[in-house]
């Protein structure tokens, strides 16, 4: 063996052999790794050695590259793919716990038909019968609707083609993570500022000052692992001689991301855009060429509305004007308001004025168009469903009954849909309301690809391949949809190969002359990407409209509600016991939902830790235990998202509360849910339920 190939790489190569051997001209069945009897084990298996497969993490849409360690046909440990441009060998908690999804005992184990929606009773179906159902349903033409999650991309691409082929409306793609990121608003703001509706990529690594407007980029925002890597470079000083990056965060509560900020300003929810505009005016006074006219902004009034002082804004302006590479990041919390689009525009304009477009330490536009539909599209779908224009609804990769605010009326509208076909791998809330369960493989058993959107300095097609034999009688949704014979692809792999075929000629990390070899290498390296950073520099825009969003203070007795995703992601993490057991970084709470309340507010309401409080908004109410959180505005409360499942298996069900119940279906200009404008009241219930948390409860902060 050559000295340059490490043993692990060799194993990866040989491991690929099992998958790759099948690709040089065998049929469909050979595309899966087959479980062989022990006497016929490949050498590495017989020796008790691990096999490593490169694939793509399916736990969130970011598309991090995985190297999956498998042992005797079992997936053991997820490790990051060191070559992958998104995560460079790193992983977050969600990706690490992926195997607990694969081996979850509550998975849907085969196709079935639900006798009655909302009831557990499911009669098993034969896959042939199931395929017939799908085939018939697809004949419905424009009365067919597709509702897809944010990953994987190949299903979205395939469904889009299929919808076009049968004359159905384009699939709706949505997910709670997209909602919390404010993706639609971000893309729309980019369109208005830079002329292209794409998501921005911020080069944290090269920046020396970052001012974040409610972006929790170290937790879930767009591509958290990539941004944490960038943050890591941003904070280093010695290597490049640049000074250690300075990080300022404007956010109503001190999230994990704000927690590591050098300066944190608890601005009122909804006032981020105003603060950005005021900052823009101060910077314009310092000689920045702002593409919008901010002179009308009253800095003092803006500062007051945001809960800051003019001196603080001046201080930020000083820092920004002195910085070589300042970055201004518009996060979901800043965007999720009625004036969110204007806020995003103002913040992006600051980047533009800083002059760092398409340069290290600046802002890039990610290559592909934003994949996420806005909530407005979802609302349109709900309307069509409600009015009976949808006969068959296909649902894949999303759990709308849980993730969407119930006030949107999705669940009610479902009852007007004749036939709901769910591809869910887990018995989630939406699967419970579906007629047919045609379970897809879990990501670790599937083929696929994910175009990573906003987490890398180059366009990436991240490859997904099965690392283990499918555990149950599940079937790839792509194959199920293709089985109707409406598209010119023989099966899922054929479809993916045809999709990636254009990449052969584009150079990049993987090169080959024909598709079979390209495919093998594509899978082996975990995807395709250019060798060098290549992202488009946004073009400078024409003059922008400066709309100062008005931040309304919370009326007396009411509180702003901040809802934020945790390591549970969009809620699908709740059935992974180790995600439940991993402490929330800020509160160290495990396994439940809490309400963060400033201790001063809690004192005024007579609330102690673990008191159950009823949180009520115009849309609904939830109950959860109080966590006295010392770093949140006194006029704001926060509830994490992801718990409160009524289905999804033994570890998720009946645990905590779902703050989506509190969100009114108010959309902003960009079509994003303005969940940041939610106002709630708090009512002590007089009951207590101790939160499970890792931190000491014994008198550390003066409480016994």
């Amino acid at each position, binding site marked *: 063996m050559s000295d340059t190939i490490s043993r692990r790489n060799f194993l990866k190569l040989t491991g690929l052999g099992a998958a790759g051997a099948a690709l040089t001209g065998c049929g469909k069945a050979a595309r899966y790794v087959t479980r062989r009897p022990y006497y016929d084990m490949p050498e590495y298996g017989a020796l008790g050695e691990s096999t490593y497969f490169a694939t793509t993490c399916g736990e969130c849409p970011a598309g991090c590259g995985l190297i999956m360690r498998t042992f005797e046909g079992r997936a053991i440990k997820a490790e990051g793919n060191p070559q992958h441009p998104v995560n460079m060998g790193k992983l977050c908690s969600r990706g690490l716990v992926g195997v607990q999804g694969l081996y979850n005992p509550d998975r849907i184990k085969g196709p079935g038909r639900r006798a009655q929606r909302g009831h557990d009773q499911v009669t098993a179906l034969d896959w042939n019968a199931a395929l017939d159902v799908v085939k018939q349903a697809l004949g419905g033409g424009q009365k067919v609707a597709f509702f897809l999650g944010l990953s994987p991309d190949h299903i979205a691409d395939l469904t889009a083609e299929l919808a076009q082929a049968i004359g159905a409306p384009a699939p709706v793609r949505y997910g709670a993570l997209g909602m919390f990121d404010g993706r639609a608003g971000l893309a729309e703001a980019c369109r208005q500022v830079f002329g292209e509706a794409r998501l921005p990529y911020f080069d944290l690594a090269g920046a020396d000052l970052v001012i974040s407007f409610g972006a929790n980029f170290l937790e879930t925002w767009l591509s958290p692992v990539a941004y944490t890597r960038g943050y890591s470079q941003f904070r280093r000083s010695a290597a490049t001689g640049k000074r250690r990056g300075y990080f300022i965060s404007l956010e109503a509560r001190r999230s994990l991301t704000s927690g590591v900020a050098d300066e944190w300003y608890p601005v009122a929810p909804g006032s981020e855009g105003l603060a950005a505009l005021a900052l823009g005016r101060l910077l314009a006074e310092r000689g920045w060429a702002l593409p919008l006219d901010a002179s009308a902004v009253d800095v003092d009034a803006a500062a007051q509305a945001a809960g800051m002082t003019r001196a603080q804004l001046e201080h930020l302006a000083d820092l920004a004007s002195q910085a070589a590479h300042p970055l201004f990041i518009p996060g979901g919390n800043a965007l999720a308001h009625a004036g969110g689009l204007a806020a995003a525009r103002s913040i992006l304009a600051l980047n533009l004025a800083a002059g760092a477009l398409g340069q290290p330490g600046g802002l890039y536009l990610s290559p592909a168009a934003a994949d996420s539909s806005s909530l407005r599209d979802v609302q349109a779908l709900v309307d069509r469903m409600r009015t009976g224009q949808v006969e068959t609804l296909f649902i894949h990769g999303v759990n709308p009954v849980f993730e969407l605010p119930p006030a949107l009326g999705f669940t009610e509208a479902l009852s007007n849909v004749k036939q709901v076909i769910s591809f869910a791998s887990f018995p989630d809330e939406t699967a419970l309301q579906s007629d047919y369960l045609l379970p897809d493989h879990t990501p670790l058993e599937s083929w696929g690809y994910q175009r990573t959107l906003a987490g890398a300095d180059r366009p990436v097609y991240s490859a997904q391949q099965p690392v283990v034999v499918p555990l149950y009688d599940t079937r790839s949704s792509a194959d199920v949809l293709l089985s109707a014979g409406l598209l010119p692809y023989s099966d899922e792999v054929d479809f993916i190969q045809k999709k990636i075929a254009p990449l052969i000629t584009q150079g990049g990390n993987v090169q080959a002359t024909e598709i079979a070899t390209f495919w093998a290498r594509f899978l082996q390296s975990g995807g395709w990407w250019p060798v060098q950073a290549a992202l488009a520099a946004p073009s400078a825009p024409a003059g922008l409209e400066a709309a100062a969003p008005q931040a309304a203070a919370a009326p007396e007795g009411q509180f702003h509600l901040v809802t934020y995703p945790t390591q549970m992601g969009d809620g699908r993490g709740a059935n992974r016991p180790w995600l439940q057991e991993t402490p929330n970084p800020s509160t160290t709470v495990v396994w439940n939902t809490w309400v963060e309340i400033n201790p001063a507010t809690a004192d005024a309401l007579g609330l102690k830790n673990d008191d159950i409080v009823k949180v009520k908004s115009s849309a609904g109410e939830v109950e959860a235990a109080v966590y006295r959180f010392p770093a949140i505005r006194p006029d704001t409360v926060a509830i994490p998202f992801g718990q409160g499942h009524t289905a999804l298996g033994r570890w998720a069900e009946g645990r905590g509360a779902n703050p989506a119940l509190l969100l009114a279906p108010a959309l902003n200009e960009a079509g994003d849910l303005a969940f940041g404008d939610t106002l709630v009241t708090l009512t002590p219930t007089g009951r207590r339920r101790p939160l499970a948390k890792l*931190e*000491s*409860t*014994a*008198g*550390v902060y003066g409480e*016994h």
Partner: protein
Amino acid sequence: MAAEVKPIANTLHTPSEEHEELREQLMFDPRPREELNRMVLDSMTHTTPRYWTAVGVLTVLVLTLLLGMWGYLIFTGIGISGERRPNYWGIFIVTFVFWIGISHAGTFVSAILRVFKAEFRRPFTRAAELMTTFGLAAGALWPLIHLGRVWVFYWMIPYPNARWLWPNFRSPLVWDLLAITTYLLSSTIYLFLPLLPDLAMARDRTTGWRHAIYRALALGWRGTEAEWARLRKAISIFAFAIIPVMFSVHTIVSWDFAMGMVGGWNSTIFGPYFIIGAILSGVSAVITILVVLRATLKNMTYFIRPEHIDALGKLVLVFSMAWAYFFFNDYLVQWYGGHDVVRALLSFHASGPDAWIWYCMLLFNIVIPWLTLWNKKLRRTPWVMLVVTLLINVGMYFERYTIIPLTLGHQRMPFDWGEYSPRFPEISLALGSLCLFMLLYLLASRLIPMVPVWEVREGQEAHLVRKVGKTVVPTVSELD
């Protein structure tokens, strides 16, 4: 030898109060030898329905609270206790230290008083020695109960094995095991040696199964000169030898803590502090037992008199003062040391949620004894002494509770501070071990003579009354 000493007590006729007191204290109202024997035998064979009820109830309690719960613990896991991070030790070890402490006084009262020829010891040495043995029996269970995997407890024992694995002789727990085993063995022998003549006495006066038992246990004792000489020599050797063993045992128990790296534990004074605490609780327990025996066992009012309780009460007062001194010394030095963790710990003890335990400890161990035991009248009132000595033992239990879980919960990393509260299984086991102690004592009280008859007689016969001027003083003839 003993038989040759002439009883002179009858010559004492002075009816003055002072003399009456002397007479009582030294039991100068001897009865014929046979009557004494009969009284003791009577107390052993006399059982009432109340006794059997007590035995029955205690047996049931031991079977359920102790053995049943222990079985449940073994089959489910230590998790059924209230222990949790960072309080890895709780009631299990508290109760262990408590029983080992109790077991100290038996030896102390018997051996030390014997060595120093304190005459008032004679009637209750046996009761105290029994307490040692049974206290150890109840205490030695705890290191086993608290093990996560009790089925491999023997890995702590240095025995030759194929893998050449030895216990870690640097670990205080191994010292503990060795010390407790040594103490259990030696205190059992020390209990047994003075029992021989009494067993022989019982053998000669009983029939049936009792006779068979006593015949076996008496080892063929005939009461010859040579046997007496050897017995005296053996008792004398053991009385001297067991004293350092006793001191070492509780010092080593204290090293379980003092050798640790836990703030508030690594105190150089823990050895003597623990010994004083052990003796305080032990002597108190002796008084408790004597009061109970006197009230429940037949004929005991003759052997156990308020004067004995009075004398032991003085001892308790002295040890309460000594304990207060050591407590203060330990506290002061720890506080003066000024380590943040220890300062925080001390204020936590005195002001945390469980501060009442700390205050009760001071109240029961210092305030109550000091307020009551200076008074002879109170010292001679059995029920007062019962209450006071029980409270002292509660106080000493609280002391161990303060030292173990309340200290563990407040260490150097505030993120990991924790509170401990015992759960039912632990409380059940602790009560069960108390029941076991009482059951063993109850059974023993009907099986072996609770009073060393020969020692009492020896004392009575050895005492002389001399007139020095006008004062009548008792003297003791040289026995050895």
